[in-house]
């Protein structure tokens, strides 16, 4: 017997849902290291971890430095085929003992629980982010949601300790409608937060595209009926398993568009490295397409084309810069150029977050800025639209500039400055555009690295110490 409240779709939604068809997907997922240890993986995967690599990981099992307890290990067959010929992708997807050398970091990165009015919803900015699933087809070792994927227990606002739960349709619909009612009654702004109407929901997790079509359709129609105008679909499935974007999926989105023509789908894709979508020759070089551009992996190319051909869909790429994976500006330049050519917008690159074990993954903030800046040298303006963002607890912040020259007459700027700008206040929309300027620290991988050299802090980024990242405010 179910204890969950049932959501009753509207008549229009039901007519749409009745048409949706689920398909079967053979992702060839391998989860856990045990299968490699017991040699139960397919033959071509047997050498993916060397005996020595496995032994080191086995020795850490059930210790404080257990790699799989930090973040479960998982890969699809499609991604394995890419990884076996790519050092960068191996670093992305293979478990490494480096991950738990230093366990410093926040149990709830981004302090999400303070922005979670109902289970599975993070209401930040003008956007609601919902957890619809707690897994992906494969797992990035640097995952920013390791606490959700690994089902770790975290301290909540009310003092209780529990793992993060998933969003449920009826509760979310009630919340959206209530928020929007209050906003409407107060002249278009929420009286406490200055936030506007909730128009946009990001379906995240985990990877929204691991949901079956019927589940996706249930969310889409419920959100549309609740008044949501743009649905974002957060996914790395174009890299992990592009065949998920199949005929049944597009039949569903086309039917959804026919039923709700004013609702946009914004597909937020996640490519870290061009190896994830480009073919390579036997020398490991990308292949020129005589018609223009470079040759893509066929299934990825087809999926991107199908998405981009639909006028109600926009595609945006956003990805973090991670040590050992994507720190070469030439590769990032190729990636931005090829994505834009194929109608994927370059939205954000991210600095590392303060997740548990982040020291294994994070580039310094100044290196990340230089990487993006160097990668955009030689790109046209429309190709170079991505900004470098770092998520402060106050909101999404841009690393605007890093200077090499001192500011004349300003103490603390001898080695140059870093300029931050709040792109969107998480709690209060009024903060947008505020700036902070700090003296340079080439070693800094998090805001705490600048606390002792703040020059100007209109944005208040350094008002509270970020050293103790494990707090829940």
């Amino acid at each position, binding site marked *: *017997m*179910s204890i*969950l409240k049932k959501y009753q779709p509207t008549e229009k939604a039901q007519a749409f849902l009745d048409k949706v068809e*689920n398909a*079967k*997907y*053979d*992702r060839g*997922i*391998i*989860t*856990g290291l*045990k*299968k490699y240890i017991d040699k139960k993986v397919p033959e071509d995967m047997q050498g993916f971890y060397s005996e020595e690599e496995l032994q080191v990981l086995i020795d850490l099992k059930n210790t404080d430095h257990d790699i799989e307890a930090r973040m479960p290990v*998982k890969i699809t067959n499609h991604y394995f085929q890419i990884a076996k010929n790519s050092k960068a992708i191996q670093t992305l997807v293979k478990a490494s003992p480096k991950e738990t050398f230093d366990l410093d970091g926040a149990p709830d990165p981004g302090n999400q629980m303070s922005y979670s009015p109902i289970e599975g919803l993070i209401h930040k900015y003008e956007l609601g982010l919902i957890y*619809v*699933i*707690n*897994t992906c*087809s494969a797992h990035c070792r640097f995952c920013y949601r390791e606490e959700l994927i690994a*089902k770790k227990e975290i301290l909540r606002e009310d003092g209780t300790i529990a793992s993060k739960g*998933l969003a449920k349709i009826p509760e979310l619909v009630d919340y959206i409608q209530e928020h929007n009612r209050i906003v409407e009654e107060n002249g278009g702004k929420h009286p406490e937060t200055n936030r506007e109407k909730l128009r946009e929901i990001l379906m995240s997790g*985990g990877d929204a595209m*691991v*949901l*079956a079509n*019927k*589940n996706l359709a249930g969310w889409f129609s419920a959100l549309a009926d609740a008044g949501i105008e743009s649905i974002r679909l957060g996914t790395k499935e174009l890299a992990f398993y592009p065949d998920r974007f199949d005929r049944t999926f597009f039949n569903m989105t086309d039917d959804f568009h026919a039923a709700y023509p004013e609702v946009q789908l914004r597909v937020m894709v996640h490519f870290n490295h061009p190896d994830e979508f480009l073919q390579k020759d036997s020398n490991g070089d990308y292949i020129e397409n005589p018609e223009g551009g470079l040759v893509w992996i066929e299934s990825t190319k087809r999926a991107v084309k199908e998405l981009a051909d639909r006028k109600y869909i926009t595609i945006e790429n956003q990805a973090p810069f991670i040590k050992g994976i994507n720190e070469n500006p030439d590769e990032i330049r190729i990636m931005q150029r090829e994505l834009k050519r194929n109608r994927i917008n370059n939205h954000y690159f991210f600095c590392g977050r303060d997740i548990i074990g982040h020291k294994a993954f994070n580039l310094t903030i100044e290196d990340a800025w230089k990487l993006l800046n160097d990668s955009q040298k030689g790109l046209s303006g429309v190709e170079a639209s991505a900004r470098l963002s770092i998520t402060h607890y106050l909101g999404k912040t841009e690393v605007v500039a890093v200077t090499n020259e001192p500011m004349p007459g300003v103490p603390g700027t001898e080695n140059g400055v870093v300029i931050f700008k709040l792109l969107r206040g998480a709690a209060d929309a009024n903060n947008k555009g505020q700036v902070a300027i700090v003296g340079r620290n080439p070693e800094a991988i998090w805001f705490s690295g600048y606390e002792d050299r703040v020059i100007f802090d209109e944005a208040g980024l350094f008002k509270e110490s970020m050293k103790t990242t494990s707090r829940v405010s």
Partner: protein
Amino acid sequence: MAFIVGENCIKCKHTSCVEVCPVNCFYEGPNFLVINPDECIDCAECVPACPIGAIYSEDDLPEDQEQFLDLNAELADIWPQITEVKKALPDADEWDGVEDKLKYLER
């Protein structure tokens, strides 16, 4: 890897797992449910959803239930998909925990 419905589901069939499965990979027979291993994406949501602890990850499957690995795959190919919760079988409570239930499996 996938998750596997084990022996204790037989003659109980609570179906609460069905409602939490994000990929709808449960298939239904007369007195037992199975997981399609090709569709399961290893999220583990179904494990705590089962009130009688009948679902295991492949790594935790008890040795004396190893045959359920193949049985899940085999029956998922034949049986219809189930996506909505229904009432448990009438004598579910009495059958919970009864040993050696495989012989009662109806196909």
